[in-house]
């Protein structure tokens, strides 16, 4: 126990200073927007629809202390039934298309779909074939795409926040009509 405590004290708080000057402010605002839309923190269900596992490495990295994802009120959850957003990776294999659709169906409204990585956008290097559909938009309506092979954690984080904002704006627009 003593060694554990010592290590924790020694490391201290590793969470990084905001990457941009207004990041903290932006983060706070985004956090409020998330609350406005959903009434609680943003919960995400990740779906690997056939990726090479590269994007998953970066999504896992997002959970490390440097990015402090949960500090922003964003959390990955185990079930689509608990999720506000689906983060989908991979070229969407034909073998995964049905599972992806069922996961989407199980996610309650309002829900957001974010395609993570080049393969999730258009199949990437794997393209479209007998085995792959070539992009998440072949199965679901995508709110936002985050390019990269794989996109780095910071890019994914920005994408998540942008998707929330985008939905908020489109809602505000719809309400004013």
């Amino acid at each position: 126990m003593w060694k554990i405590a010592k290590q924790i004290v020694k490391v201290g708080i590793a969470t990084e200073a905001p990457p941009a000057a207004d990041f903290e402010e932006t983060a706070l605002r985004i956090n409020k927007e998330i609350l406005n839309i959903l009434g609680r923190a943003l919960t995400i269900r990740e779906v690997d629809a056939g990726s090479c596992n590269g994007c998953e490495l970066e999504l896992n990295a997002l959970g490390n202390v440097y990015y402090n994802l949960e500090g922003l009120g964003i959390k990955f959850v185990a079930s689509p039934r608990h999720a506000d957003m689906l983060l989908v990776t991979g070229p969407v294999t034909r073998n995964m298309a049905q599972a992806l659709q069922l996961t989407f169906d199980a996610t309650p409204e309002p829900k957001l779909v974010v395609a993570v990585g080049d393969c999730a956008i258009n199949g990437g290097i794997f393209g479209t074939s007998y085995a792959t559909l070539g992009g998440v938009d072949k199965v679901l309506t995508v709110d936002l795409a985050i390019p990269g092979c794989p996109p780095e954690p910071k890019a994914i984080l920005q994408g998540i926040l942008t998707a929330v904002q985008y939905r908020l704006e489109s809602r505000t627009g719809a309400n004013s009509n």
Partner: protein
Amino acid sequence: MEIADLDLELVVMKAPFPLLRGEVGFEEWSSVALSIAQGHGRLITLWGTDNGQRESGRYSVSAVYEFVDATLIWLDLYLPDQQVNFPDIAGIYPYATRLQRTMTDLLGLHAEAAADTRPWLNHGAWPSDYFPLRKEFTGTEDRRWPGVVDYPFVPVTGDGVHEIAVGPVHAGIIEPGHFRFSVVGEKTLRLEEHFGYAHKGIDKRFEHISASEGHLLAGRISGDSTVAYAWAYCMALEAAWGWEVPTRGAWLRALLLERERVANHLGDLGALGNDAAFTFGLTQFMRLKEDWLRLNKTFFGHRFMMDCIVPGGVGVDIDVAGMSQIVTQCDAIEAEVSRLRAIYDDHAGLQDRFLTTGRVSTELATELGLTGLAARASGIARDVRIDAPTLPYTELKVKIASRDGGDVAARVAVRFDEVVESLRLIRQIARALPAGEVLEKTNDQMRAGSGVGWVEGWRGGIFLALTVADGNRITRCHSHDPSAQNWPVLEYAVIGNVVPDFPLINKSFNLSYSGTDR
């Protein structure tokens, strides 16, 4: 047993390690397989090819064995005329089953009288008379594709037996696959895996890209092993084209490979703590891994070093000041890992979860063909870097990490040892890195030929067989992930364990879905 005892006509293939190739007849296919097994050799991989118009048979099946002296033996069996049946060798090498079923799904070749003939990669998403690897199919036809169908799992019956279905969408951020547990109470009676969800048609895709760009696709067969795959691909291509890699380029490849090993082991050591409810471990190790990846980005332009290895050498270089930063980080990480190891070792709750959990005995590991890191934790001390070393491993002299326990604790211990050893190797590379070019000046000898890549990735030996035609074209590229051997062993490792230990046992192997489904 000697290779000569096999009584085969074998020719030496160009490769940076001992490699022989020969043709066998229909009758010899199984008898040679058996002789090699009896001589303590191992099957590495199995695949089929459509050779188009050819006198001695349109289809061929190929097997690569690792002889007991670590020589690789590549055997081809050309099936006469239009014949699609070949002899079953799953009775000798159990894990050949899924490879043979893959051949049926992708090429329409059948293992004669095989016990398990269920489709493997084809979940119904393409018609059963559509064989993507046959030359008459492009793999990109525009047609109405069917939807997936249910898979006939083997049922377990008895008082109180029930099934737990897990996946393909898992609870964490993990690759897709299905696990069907048959349990009584908490105890696992049987686990049956069903994969193929990550099947991206990579073998066919290779036919559509130029050979000189194949490393880009190879580097995405399994993203966590991008360096190992890219190296294996380039090794095969360089053998086919007769290219030589400059010495400095070869040394830098090893630097990248060892960095990939350390990154993955750090992540796994954290995740293993987490799966035993010790989140402190995850937090600490993920921090170290992030530091590690960031330095990759600084010096090699990519956190996972994708596309750094290219045909003819490497596309990156590093100066003395950079190497010195890398060494400084090795020292820092080693000190942290050593502190964390002491914490892991002293933690009674953690050790209680690790010890005796998911045990694979040496006998079982040998019988089922367990390989790589997991095999080294079950007393099978094999490592491509030591058994079939290529430059610079011929000079680095890797010290093998091995344990006899075969449980989660042993697989954790091997990872700790390998992190320390890889850090030592990186320092040694820093000291001895030769000067010179990192990439061969292309001499445009893009001739037809074939070659093999054989690289010890962090999970185990990654194998790749490549055949190229004139005009920079790929006619066949077969890659093999060590996970293919190890997934079936996981089904045994969990028997008798409680269901909540499955994530821990699974993580202790941490096998690739994408690498096996391709």
